[in-house]
């Protein structure tokens, strides 16, 4: 799911065991399964790997390819 930004435009997630996808326009900034707390003023999507990949396809993102699935070759 897309994390709703706070009143200052920051999206934040400190969950563990999830995939975290940060993107801006069509470019993936960060895509990783991580327990590191992450914040961004771009779009932050947090979910399972399948959910993140669906989001990547839905928004037609590029710029990072998951090493196992070769998403969105550019």
């Amino acid at each position, binding site marked *: 799911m897309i994390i709703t930004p*706070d009143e200052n435009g*920051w999206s934040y997630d400190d969950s563990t065991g999830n995939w975290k996808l940060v993107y801006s326009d069509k470019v993936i900034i*960060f895509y990783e399964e991580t327990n590191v707390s992450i914040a961004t003023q771009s779009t932050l999507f947090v979910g399972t790997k399948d959910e993140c990949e669906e989001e990547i396809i839905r928004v037609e993102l590029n*710029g990072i390819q998951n090493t196992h699935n070769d998403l969105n070759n550019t």
Partner: protein
Amino acid sequence: MKLTDSSAANVGLSVVRCIASSTTLFRHFMVYAATTISSVISGTVGLIKNGTGTLISTAVNTYTGGTTVNSGTLQIGNGTNATARVLGTTTLSGGNLAYNYNANNFAVNGSITLTATATITKLNGLRQINLQTGTLNGGSQTLNIFVDTTAGTAPLYFNGTAGTSLGQVNILNGGVGQDGTGGLPLRNAAINVSSGAQFRTYTSPTINNNITLNGGAGPDGNGALWNESVVAGHTPIYTGIITLATGTNSSVGNTTSAFSITGKITGAGSFTKVGTGILSTFSTLTVVNDYTGSTTISAGTLRVLKPFAITTPTASFTSTTLSVSFSSTLPSGTTNFQFFQGSTTNTYASVTLVSVPAGTTAVYTSATSTLTVIVP
């Protein structure tokens, strides 16, 4: 958002370890705790690393926008990778770079530019890596090099293209090498080899660096300076000034291939020849070795050649007595040991012999700097 200290930032009341943002040209990461990106970063958008934490990239990245490390460390590989990489130029402008491969990697080919003092770390002592084809632009900066020796003594070689020179290279730990087949990107810089660390060569490079040795025989015992090649004819030539730090004893080693020092050996430290090969030192008319510590030949041969254009060189040993210790059994009969091609001012009417058969005698001839040992 506010920065709290060097280890975190706050967004509202939340503590954040990684802040990700972007422009049209760069991904920006403000990292306060080790953060891994295992996916392949592609496209034309580059990467900027800020924050004191380590950003670890473990993929064979293909992005072409360049990489800048302003703070903390960008680490390539996490110890399980063999081919992780970043393409193009990595600019170290206050940050550091680390490599952690789980295979020998002889073709790491990204370029590196320093705009501030930086540290390059090689982790995993079991694996050698060569920074092979990229350009190192030192910008007269200081480069600290730390080669982890926890698991082994595999070195880090700098074999890429030589750009602008570094001002200073500090080898803090482990072995750092130059291969004569590369562009000698560490050339010209003053090199300081910490106690127990090592500067080493392969093939026949001309090493023009002024080098300070601070003692020890390197992490593998082969020498603080070491010609690791075993190919006959692979002879490094050291043309700079080698300084032996006061109160230290530094080893220089080689085996089947030779080793030449044509620059001056100076300083108040001592020097030990290790390894079975021949180490030659020779001087010009105006530059003569003047180090004041002791000289020990624990293996191989130390050949002190006469200065160029001097037909009858003369040396003056600092020791007022001559004591020679033998680590191998001398044959019966007469054996001559010539210390160098010339005479000495010292005459040594008596010679002390250690570890020789009973009844062995010796005579020192100062005119030829020759010790004649007679074993009954």
